[in-house]
């Protein structure tokens, strides 16, 4: 039974870091064939209250809502190793 991940990516409009984070995340997801991902991209300029509820400060921020515990990864996600560690996903090639 594949593990289900619920992710939220907080971005600001179409900033370079935000677009890069989304690209990096999509690439990473595509490599994780064993896992089901549910990703929601949230623009804080449009949904500031969601950002308030999730206590978002840095942009971009990736939140892993499920599986518990809740984790946050801030930054453009360019360091894949750290992202995988942050999401508690064991790197595939190791």
């Amino acid at each position, binding site marked *: 039974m594949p593990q289900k991940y619920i992710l939220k990516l*907080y971005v*600001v409009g179409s900033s370079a870091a935000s677009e890069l984070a989304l690209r990096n995340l999509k690439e990473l997801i595509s490599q994780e064939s064993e896992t089901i991902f549910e990703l929601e991209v949230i623009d804080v300029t449009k949904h500031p209250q969601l950002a308030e509820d999730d206590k*978002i*400060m840095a942009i971009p921020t990736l939140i892993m809502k499920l599986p518990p515990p809740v984790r946050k*990864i*801030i930054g453009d*996600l360019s360091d894949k190793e750290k992202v995988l560690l*942050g999401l508690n996903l064991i790197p595939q090639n190791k």
Partner: protein
Amino acid sequence: MATRIKGRSSKAKSTGKSPAVRSGVLKIPTGIKGFDEVLEGGIPKDRALLVAGSTGTGKTVFASEFIYRGITEHNENAVYITFEEHPGDIIKNVKSFGWDFDMLIRKKKLVFVDASPDNVITKESGEYDISGLVERIKHAVNQVKAKRAAIDALSMLFSKFTNKDAIREVIYNICDELKRLGVTTVITAEKVGDRTNGPSRHGVEEYVVDGVVELSLEPGQQQFTRKMFIKKLRGVGYRSGVVKFDVTNAGLEVFPKIEVNRMVSKTDFKNREKFGLKGIDDALGGGIPQGHMLLISGNTGTGKTLFGMHFIAQGIKEGKRTVCIALEEPIEQVKKTAIEFGFNFTKYEKEGKLVFVSPSLIDISNDKLLYQIVNAVNKIGAKRVMIDSVSSLQSATMSEESVRQFLYQAASFFKTKGIACLMNYLSSTNFGATRGQLLASMDTNIMRLSSIVDGIIVLLYVERAQRVKRIFNILKMRGSWHSTDIFQYAINKDGIDFGKRYEE
């Protein structure tokens, strides 16, 4: 949009407020007791003020009160951005001052931006900025149409993120954004080290803000003394120097140095404030001239306080409101003594004709005492003041120099108001003056106060034929005729029984 307005703005008119204006920068009152006077009106509108201090100096109380007074007294809604404590804890803590933040939140006058530690495992990967926080602040400001913001405490931001440049940038962005939105902000920051190290842990804040106030806590003789130092305030006037403040159960109370205009003197020799004791009033040429400070000096038991009570009671009888500064005894005891002589001070107090000022003498400062006196005088429009006694200030923790300074400032203030002030001074004169040289044993300590006070009355004991007699002499009275006779008086159940010229 931050606006520079010369003169009174139309907006200020419409709200009925009159914010102080100086050199084109509009000020808004914080509402913190005494603080706005120190800043000659308040803090610069739409700007950021940094309040720095080490732990326990009252930074969070300052920020919270700025918010609370803004909403409740100046109709300015607010955003509270907290980096340190959880909103729930802040709400709970300020309840002890009687500030109901829950209610303000329910009424949509206050909103929190919760940036306190959330215990979520957080990792960093790659570039980021802190625009999420900026967006949340903007959203919060729009939600309640905020005019004020508190940021408490900024230093916490640095421990949260490793990218220091991003933090510096965001601090600048937040301040800029709040200015743009027309929000006046109080930012608190932890201060470590001494004054030479700058006002807060990271030098950047000072550069970004328009004003810096430092709070400090220093051990006094029996309790801590809180001090406030206005370090910088761009483009506006303020009173320089260090001022003291207290954290009371109703918030902060700052004691500004009282600035007295020495050019104004309402001394009036035609209008005299009477004791209601014919002999004394006649000897004084009608009473104490308005604007005069009269010192009454005598050893213990000579009836100094009683003379004061006559002075208070007569004033109230004539419809003149009076402030009594009771430093010698507890107020209740003063009242009990007064009733023995037929003076109902409790009734006068209830009627608002008499106000007592009775500060704790422990770690008292001249600024604080003077501020309390000025407030009491202005509150009821007093024409008479009685201080019982000056010597208790000296025997408390005030240095001789501070007492002199206090009297000098007080005398100047009373002159600007045309107030007649009677104050007692405990002298250590001896018994048993020699025949024909009644004043020979007089304590000369009072002479050092002579240049400050306008008049001096001395009360003395003389021992004659195995009896102690009390004598009274007016030693000096500036610019006015007075009797130079030595009078005899007694104390009976109705108070002072003022007699005739003393005859051996």
